[in-house]
């Protein structure tokens, strides 16, 4: 009888263990499904994010490229304009300076000419004056006074 009771207890324990095992297995299966679902969702989310990011990056890149092209074109235009303006200004300055230099050169040349002319005259006059005898001076004056 004790054996019978022991067998019953064992069977009960066995059944109880089997139930627990079945229950646990069911829970394990559920966990796997959830994990699988989470993994799939995560993957989808990841792909979605990747796709979205890729699209955004492409859009940003396109915008940046456009903006960069516009900036480059504007810069080139401004650089060309500046260069043209600078060249023109430089030409004007050069022309102005050349003209001033020419005027200065001519002025100095004229001054030197006048100075040389004056020196030659002074020296010649001095030499002529010394070369004239006193009686010749007197004769020149006498003739001039007689014209009064």
């Amino acid at each position, binding site marked *: 009888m004790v054996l019978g009771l022991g067998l019953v207890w064992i069977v009960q324990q066995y059944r109880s263990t089997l139930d627990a095992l079945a229950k646990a297995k069911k829970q394990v299966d559920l966990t796997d499904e959830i994990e699988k679902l989470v993994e799939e969702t995560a993957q989808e989310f990841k792909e979605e994010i990747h796709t979205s990011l890729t699209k955004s990056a492409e859009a940003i890149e396109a915008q940046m490229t456009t903006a960069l092209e516009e900036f480059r074109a504007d810069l080139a235009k401004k650089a060309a304009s500046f260069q043209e303006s600078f060249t023109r200004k430089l030409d004007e300055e050069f022309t102005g300076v050349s003209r001033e230099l020419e005027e200065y050169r001519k002025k100095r040349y004229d001054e030197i000419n006048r100075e040389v002319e004056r020196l030659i005259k*002074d020296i010649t006059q001095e030499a*002529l004056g010394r070369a*004239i005898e006193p009686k010749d*001076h007197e004769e*020149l*004056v006498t003739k*001039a*006074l*007689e*014209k009064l």
Partner: protein
Amino acid sequence: MDETAKIKTLNQASSVKRDLEAAADNLYRLNLSQEDTDTKKRQYEEAVEKIENLKVIKLALAFDPSTDFVDKMWQIVAQKMGEGIVLDIALDKSLIGGVVIEHDGQHQDYSLRRIFNAKTKL
């Protein structure tokens, strides 16, 4: 004697005028009568006035003239313009030769410088 008769140049005129003015100021030292003093003073004043009325003829020369030549120049000018003249003579060697005459607002250039400048004008 008329002191003004000897005057040929402006320098001489100035000198004689100063002497006459000094003599007039010193008349009181001679202890003359009032009448003689007044007569002398009037003579001096007339002489000074005569000097002041002389016509000044300016002559610029390229050489320093001798006294004889100054007299000669005065005689020529006085012959042409009358005796009431006095010469104001200046030395200007840049004239080279000849004379520049200024009188009655007229300027007559008979210098060699004028001819020289005209011939060398560039």
